[in-house]
């Protein structure tokens, strides 16, 4: 097969399909019109509206708090899982870590809703969302940490043991510093997934509490204004920053061998 002009044309059309919708959202966030239809003129208006939208700011604060707490816990648990799976062949754990990610999201959402209400008798809110987010984030952290660990030379751990390091000392002074880039990349991944999650949050949030995706959803369902475009544009910027940060660590964690 050659990289002929027809292959290039087809591939470029697919790239356009991927980028045009995003470009349209960003462009209309600066459009001086309530309708996302005709270009009228440039304005910062929708960003100003956004700054004074109290509900939106509260939702953003909730999202940030949930993402911080859930990614922190998921990083600790996911790192432990990654080590246990890679170093000690914990197959059952590997299965348990991947299943919540492999199934359609709605199934985890409704089963957790049922569990929180029917079994734990929990009032849905911050706690139920955080627990749900940890559940689906552990798998991603574990996979990244595991990949980092798989790239390390087994003999480093033997050397540490031969030099008289206890298992804890081996972990503290050898294993952990070496997998740290993977841990950080996994944590950033968990943070992004949590900030972005809609489906599982939708089922575990209850009535009183909103997150950014939940708030965007209700805006889309009720009344679409370019304010949605403005918050979308800001979120795209945020995710790009997170990816740049994460890739700085993953390129160390996954590509380069130590």
């Amino acid at each position: 097969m050659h990289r002929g002009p027809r292959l290039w044309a087809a591939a470029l059309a697919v790239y356009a399909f991927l980028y045009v919708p995003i470009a349209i959202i960003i462009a209309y966030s600066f459009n001086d019109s309530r309708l996302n239809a005709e270009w009228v003129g440039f304005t910062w208006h929708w960003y100003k509206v956004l700054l004074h939208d109290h509900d939106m700011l509260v939702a953003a604060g909730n999202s940030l708090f949930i993402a911080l707490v859930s990614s922190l816990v998921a990083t600790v648990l996911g790192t432990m899982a990654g080590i246990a799976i890679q170093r000690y062949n914990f197959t059952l754990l590997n299965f348990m870590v991947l299943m919540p990610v492999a199934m359609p999201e709605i199934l985890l959402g409704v089963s957790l809703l049922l569990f929180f209400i029917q079994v734990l008798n929990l009032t849905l809110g911050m706690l139920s969302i955080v627990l749900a987010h940890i559940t689906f984030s552990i798998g991603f952290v574990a996979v990244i940490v595991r990949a980092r660990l798989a790239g390390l030379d087994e003999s480093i751990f033997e050397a540490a043991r031969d030099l008289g390091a206890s298992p804890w000392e081996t972990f503290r002074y050898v294993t952990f510093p070496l997998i740290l880039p993977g841990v950080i990349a996994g944590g950033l991944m968990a943070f992004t997934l949590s900030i972005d999650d809609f489906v599982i949050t939708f089922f575990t949030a209850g009535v009183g509490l909103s997150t950014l995706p939940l708030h965007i959803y209700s805006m889309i369902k009720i009344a679409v204004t370019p304010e949605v475009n403005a918050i979308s544009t800001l979120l795209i910027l945020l995710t790009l920053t997170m990816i740049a940060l994460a890739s700085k660590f993953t390129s160390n964690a996954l590509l380069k061998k130590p």
Partner: protein
Amino acid sequence: MTDSGHKHTRAARLAKYLMGGPPLLFLLLLFAVPSVIMVLASFRYPGEFGGLAPLTAADPNTLQGVTLETYQFFFSDLIYIKVFIKSFFMALATTLICLIMAYPLALLIALSPKKNRNLMVLMVILPFASNFLIRVYAWMIILGPQSVLSQLVNNFLHLFGNAPVHLLFSPFAVLIAMVYVHLPFMVLPLYSNLEKHDPSLLDAAQDLGANGWQRFWRVTFPLSLPGIFSGSALVFIPVLGMFAIPDILGGTGDMLIGNLIKEQFIGTRDWPFGSTLSIMLTIAVLLIAWLAAKLGGHRGHYA
């Protein structure tokens, strides 16, 4: 086994459970237990105000105990089976369109010089990193009644004397957004398969007189089947359970399994029936995953 070896394995087992125990416990409690609860809930009666009816109640007139009613209900009314079939075809159509769009792109990336490949892959993932709802919302704008596309389509239809159509809130809108959201899941496994192909196979085919199409259909395509199957599973499974896209871009008649499940848990609050639908979805997903693994694994021998 020597004494030190014995001590070593005991220490290793201790370390295994010290490390793996906490995440395992967490996932048992928040994934395994809720899944079992859902199976149990499907055999109960719905509660008066949502939730489940009690297992035992003093008043013999209230609903109580266990039942197979939700399953009988599922199979007695064709509506539910029809929604499953419709969802299946939506997932199939999405998978096929994703495959047709992803293949040339994955092939081009795999054939590009090594130094460009990572950037080209990143370009596929980047739009996918923006929030899911935002990507769906973009199609609300593009397909909206005042959009450039809608006007073009309707002017064109008008030329031939046809009545204007609504692009938004239609199965077409649902399908296009499904493709948009899931496309990277097809490109990545395809690319990682195509990248591993040995170019000398194509040279050999050429020496034996195969033309461009023959080389593609008889060498590249069969070898890429494992990538096709894993990509297809990654697209098919989430589409089968999707509720947000039909909810935002579909009309009232475009309900899929996910919308049906959401309706039982959030709307009508019939949790036992919602659980039954979720279990049916789980069975469908497991069947498809098994099929993909079997087909992919079998073909994998050739790659």
